[in-house]
């Protein structure tokens, strides 16, 4: 009966911690089979949203459905449908990889033959076969993250949540992790992942840009970037305030760009020489590039993606 329901449906979701509004009214529909990214800085509310979707926290207001089932009412049904990789390690470090996977099967009440077969398949697919009988603590960082992925997948979830799943991995390990995720996506399975790396978000079918507990934009990566015309100029000067005032005066519409000034221009290559010649303050750095997701984010929020790094994991950017 829930066959054609969306993988995730969120309506007016609000979550307050004592003083902090972590989520301030989230509306979201994620289609079945979709690869969906939540892109936003630390503290934007991504982890809180996942905690609610994964039945670990209750929303203050609004509701969330996974395949048509309410996460606060039909918890066990939702739990059976989802797999989640947390930011932090969630495998028992002293048990072997294989034992960790079997344990999950037992906790989900699955038949051991079924689980073992799936575990072996995953170990092979994720290049973990030779690590299978080693305690998890003896593995490399990249291997451990792949074990987390295997743990989340061994129960054959319909929706897979990945919360900053590649945190702390180097570029190579990150690339290999995503290669595996894509490889595992099969018909009917949906992936929802949170990240603050824009290049990770690019692989998604659609991206929700999230800041301070709200979705500020939701579209395909291409459409999001198309919101910025032409190219982007980033300027850093000895006095950004003065430079901004001058630019505004000349009709350039400067945007605050993290640390510096951002200009959206149809012909950046033509504009830069003029700026360098005419700007009354000394330019320290100038950069021209195609619009990126980070630029979109900057334009919409006036903040960078890593700017808020270091604020609490659960806190919703309350500054």
């Amino acid at each position, binding site marked *: 009966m829930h066959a054609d329901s969306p993988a995730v449906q969120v309506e007016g979701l609000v979550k307050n911690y004592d003083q902090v509004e972590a989520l301030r009214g989230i509306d979201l529909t994620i289609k079945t089979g979709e690869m969906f990214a939540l892109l936003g800085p630390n503290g934007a509310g991504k982890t809180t949203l996942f*905690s609610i979707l994964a039945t670990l926290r209750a929303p203050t207001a609004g509701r969330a459905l996974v395949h048509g089932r309410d996460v606060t009412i039909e*918890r*066990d049904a939702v*739990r059976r449908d989802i797999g989640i990789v947390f930011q932090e390690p*969630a495998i*028992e470090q002293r048990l072997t990889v294989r034992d960790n996977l079997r344990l999950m099967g037992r*906790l989900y009440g699955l038949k051991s033959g079924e689980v073992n077969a799936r575990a072996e398949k995953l170990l092979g697919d994720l290049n973990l076969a030779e690590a299978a009988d080693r305690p998890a603590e003896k593995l490399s960082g990249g291997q451990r993250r792949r074990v987390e992925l295997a743990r989340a997948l061994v129960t054959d979830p319909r929706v897979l949540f990945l919360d900053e799943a590649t945190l702390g991995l180097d570029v190579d390990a990150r690339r290999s992790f995503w290669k595996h995720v894509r490889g595992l996506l099969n018909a009917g399975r949906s992936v929802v992942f949170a990240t603050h790396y824009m290049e990770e978000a690019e692989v998604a079918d659609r991206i929700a840009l999230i800041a301070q507990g709200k979705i500020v934009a939701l579209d395909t990566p291409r459409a999001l970037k198309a919101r910025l015309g032409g190219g982007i100029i980033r300027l850093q000067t000895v006095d950004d305030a003065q430079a901004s005032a001058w630019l505004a005066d000349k009709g350039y519409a400067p945007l605050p760009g993290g640390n510096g000034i951002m200009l959206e221009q149809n012909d950046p290559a033509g504009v830069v020489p003029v700026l360098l010649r005419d700007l009354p303050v000394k330019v320290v750095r100038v950069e021209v590039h195609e619009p990126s997701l980070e630029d979109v984010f900057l334009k919409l929020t006036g903040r960078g993606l890593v700017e808020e790094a270091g604020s609490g994991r659960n806190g919703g950017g309350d500054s």
Partner: protein
Amino acid sequence: MNGLLAIIFLDMKRFWLDRVRLFAGLLQPLLYLFVLGGGIGASSVQGGAFYRSFIFPGVVCLAMLFTATFAAIVIVFDRQVGFFKAVLVSPVSRTAIGVGKVISGAMQAMVQGLILLLFAPLAGVSLSFFSVLETVVAMALVAMTFSAIGVALASRFRSTTVFPIMTNAVLLPMFFLSGAMFPLDRAPAWMKKLAHLDPVAYGVDLMRQALLGQTSAFFPLWLDVLVLVAATCLLSWAAVRVFARGEETGLGATQFPWRR
């Protein structure tokens, strides 16, 4: 049922990896039994041998109490890393998690207690087939209660550094008031009153009745059993309630139940 077994199986597997703890766990009770027991016993009217056998059931309880509560620290540790979340997002019932934790802690305490039981002859406690049988049954009940104390406490802590400090602050008074080291019937009136509120006192009393016979009883046997069963149920229920909240802790709710 599957989930319950999975929780117990997991904890017993980890206990096996930590089996060296069994030897470390013997040190403290044996110190109480032979050093403290020997010293105090030598200056008591009835003599050292009598005192040693008197405190033996209490010392077995001590070993079980500390093993059971230490076993519960794994809950706090699992929460500190993310492992407990992986358990909480699984469909295993929260009751199975709570009860499974209590049973696995009790099993670990039983193992420690049974090892200590081997020292009975050295402590001057003679064992018969029936007294051993009674003792094992008593131990199982007492271990469940002690484990429930540990799990109920552990469910509310997030820090593996704070938990042992708080646990000691709760356990030591409970142990001292239990009459493990001295006969409660000759204790001051205020102490007797407090002992009535101390589940450990009923555990020690039950163990003493099993090992030394009914003449050593302070509480009636039925009351021992009733209190231990009730305490086990109540404390397990309190732990299950916390597990049912998932990550939802709220201010103080996790650390201090009485604020809510």
